[in-house]
């Protein structure tokens, strides 16, 4: 137990230790293995895993950094462990959620029954920044809109998992999930064999099967490609990694051409038809003819081919409406409306600034709340009430009053913590969980997901752009 001597779980939900300081049952075998290491050995193994990331080039680019330097995504070698029963619960809840979200997207891009039945006020949809009314009536392959979803889950002091947001556009990070496992296997060989940890390596296969499933072409093998904004994108490593694991070509916009509503890629042997595009470019940039005219990353004419049903996109165009934090508020209602079921995973309690009663509550309690802009991500555009200065709170108050449609507020959830190696000692750090849900012929979720950790003491912000790191996530067989 040398490594964990003096560890203080604090007043939070600790993933490894109970309130009385005793180790949770499902973590006991792990703790025994790690706890018996001496610090020197542990640090050598940690350095080994970091070298692996550096040599593999598993880095991200930091924007606004003049030197264009690449950094390693900080990796903490202490895994987050989850018993089988807990994972089953999450899996059921996430599956229910992605099915409902897809029914919702199909509905609002077709008959809009949910608006007619006034379950969601029409106003919220029509004013959603990423709603694409011009795509109403367009049919997509297998009626699937969100093929890959990266829902963020957090766990409160009560130990309950909440859905914080659904990322239904181009969620990133899956490659880190896979490489975290590789790094840990290298640093601690043999540790997995006896502990019954479920493998995660099926992800690329599941992804490729899904892409094949949505191909518009039924004869022969479909040609699938991954469309990247290019090597200067912060997630470029991931794009290459996934393309290689799936054995498909990674293309940039300029590699594709649209001819008579069919999409082709430019090869040394001429133009080759493309059937499915796993795109890692946002709607805004994907086709300069339809969306942003100044985009040089996209493919002119792509939307024509897409509307004609000659090419499938994963994810579909227009899913961003479901990422709107105001629409998020309605997901439990969607589950009830479309599936007639109780939501398995709750939302974080949310207040909508454009509802009068909620607005009153928000303005009266700003110092205690988290306020978020409806369409920002990455930890930007938000107010952490308890940590904010008076001026910041006043500034946000004005913004909320000026544009209530675009703000929501939530109570501060003190995220659960996990023991994390912090410069010389094991300390508790806040974590969240991003599972990757794939929706093709059926729903596949790789066991666990990416556990992100806020490395700064007491910070609740886990985003890599703001000092976050990650951990391997272990789902146990039993």
């Amino acid at each position, binding site marked *: 137990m040398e490594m964990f001597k003096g560890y203080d779980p604090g007043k939070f939900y600790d993933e490894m230790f109970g309130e009385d300081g005793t180790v949770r049952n499902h973590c006991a075998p792990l703790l025994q293995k790690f706890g018996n290491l001496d610090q020197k050995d542990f640090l050598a193994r940690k350095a080994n895993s970091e070298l692996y990331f*550096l*040599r*593999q*080039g598993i880095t991200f680019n930091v924007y606004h950094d003049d030197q264009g330097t690449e950094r390693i995504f900080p990796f903490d070698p202490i895994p987050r462990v989850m018993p089988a029963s807990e994972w089953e619960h999450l899996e059921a809840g996430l599956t229910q959620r992605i099915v409902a979200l897809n029914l919702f997207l199909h509905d609002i891009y077709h008959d809009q029954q949910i608006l007619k039945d006034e379950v969601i006020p029409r106003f919220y949809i029509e004013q959603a920044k990423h709603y694409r009314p011009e795509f109403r009536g367009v049919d997509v392959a297998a009626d699937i809109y969100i093929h890959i979803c990266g829902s963020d889950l957090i766990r409160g002091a009560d130990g309950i998992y909440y859905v914080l947001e659904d990322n239904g556009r181009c969620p990133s990070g899956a490659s880190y999930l896979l490489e975290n496992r590789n790094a840990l296997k290298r640093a601690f060989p043999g540790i997995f064999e006896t502990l019954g940890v479920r493998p995660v390596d099926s992800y690329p296969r599941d992804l490729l099967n899904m892409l094949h499933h949505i191909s518009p072409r039924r004869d022969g093998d479909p040609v699938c490609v991954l469309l990247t904004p*290019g*090597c200067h994108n912060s997630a*470029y*490593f991931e794009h*290459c*990694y996934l*393309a*290689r694991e799936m054995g498909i*070509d*990674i*293309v*940039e916009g*300029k*590699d594709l*051409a649209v*001819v*008579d509503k*069919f999409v*082709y*890629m*430019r*090869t*040394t*042997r*001429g*133009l*080759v*038809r493309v059937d499915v595009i796993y795109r890692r470019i946002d709607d805004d940039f994907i086709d300069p003819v339809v969306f942003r005219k100044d985009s040089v990353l996209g493919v*002119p004419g792509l939307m024509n081919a897409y509307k004609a049903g000659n090419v499938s996109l994963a994810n579909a165009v227009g899913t961003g409406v479901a990422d709107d934090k105001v629409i998020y508020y309605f997901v439990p209602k969607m589950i009830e409306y479309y599936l007639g079921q109780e939501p398995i995973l709750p939302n974080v309690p949310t207040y909508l600034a454009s509802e009068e009663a909620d607005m009153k509550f928000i303005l009266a309690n700003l110092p205690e709340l988290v306020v978020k802009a409806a369409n920002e991500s990455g930890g930007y555009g938000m107010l952490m009430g308890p940590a904010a200065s008076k001026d910041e709170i006043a500034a946000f108050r004005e913004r909320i009053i000026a544009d209530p449609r675009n703000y929501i507020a939530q109570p501060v959830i003190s995220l659960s913590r996990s023991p994390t190696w912090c410069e010389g000692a094991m300390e508790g750090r806040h974590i969240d969980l991003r599972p990757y849900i794939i929706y093709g012929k059926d729903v596949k979720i790789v066991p666990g997901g990416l556990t992100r950790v806020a490395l700064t003491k007491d910070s609740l912000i886990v985003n890599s752009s703001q000092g976050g790191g990650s951990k391997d996530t272990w789902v146990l067989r039993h």
Partner: protein
Amino acid sequence: MLSRVANTLYWMVRYVERADNLARLIDVNRQLLLDFESLDTERLRGFWQPIILSTGDEEDFNKLYDHTGSDEVTRFLTDDPRNPNSITSCIALARENARTVRDQLSDELWEELNALYLFSRSDEARRLIDSDAQRYYEMIRRSAVTFLGIAASTTSRNEAWEFMDLGRHLERADKTTRFLDVSSYLPPSEDGMEAVSPSILHGTAILRSCGAMGAFRAAQREINAEGVVDFLIFAKDFPRSVRYCIEKVDNSLHLISGTPRGAFSNEAERESGRLLAELNFGSTEDVFEAGLHDYLDALQGRFNHIGGEIFETYVLMPERIQTSPGPKPPTFSDAALWRMEQQQHQSQK
């Protein structure tokens, strides 16, 4: 394969090869100078100036430095970030190319190049350049050779490989001519100063740095200027001779297009075939008749022509449509823009 990927693989390997050859070129000169015990500044300049002239970078060099001494030239060619053709710049460019086609490379191959890149930017490298330069150049060369070895043992012999091989052999042929060209700029021997003329010492140094001493001796008896030229341009089976490299280029081009050797289906094949025939049937007489420098200069022009035609054929003009219902070929509105971008890329050599 994707045209862009073919182009990127080609340049990735060219830059590695370029870094390797620069390390050799500098080493040649350092070895050469070991044979001259006392040189005054003016004489010393006479030995470093040709390096800059042969790489064709004198304009850039003169903008950055006032003086052509060994420190300035080695710095300029080794780790000056302002020189896009320095060893460290080439390694960074090779690695940047590799990064964009990471999915095509084996893990080992990427790791080797990435490790070379990390080394080239490390404090250790900086320290070695100052304190033990020979060791530094050796490490660069070793890593470059390891890179090629890993590539050879982990890459399927498909189009990707052929494009990489094209890049390697075109670059190598070009650099071999530049090695030789150095001797056409060398100062004449001064009576009583040296026992052997600089061009012969230079010939020896070139052969040594190419690891060609044994092969040369097996093929020719004694070292003289003509023999070295003959060997490095016309040797049939030495892997750094121009003829050997062009034979490889011609072979790769035909493997890519599927056209039988001796025939051609594009301008690149036509030019490589014509050049190969001249090399197969040529001799040093042609070289000295034209003058060594002019002959080498003409060769470099033809390598560039082949490179340009490869780009035209496989990157700029993939208009034929496969497996499609047969719509007519498109006209690309962004082709001009793309050409510009790629040219900018190429002009960095």
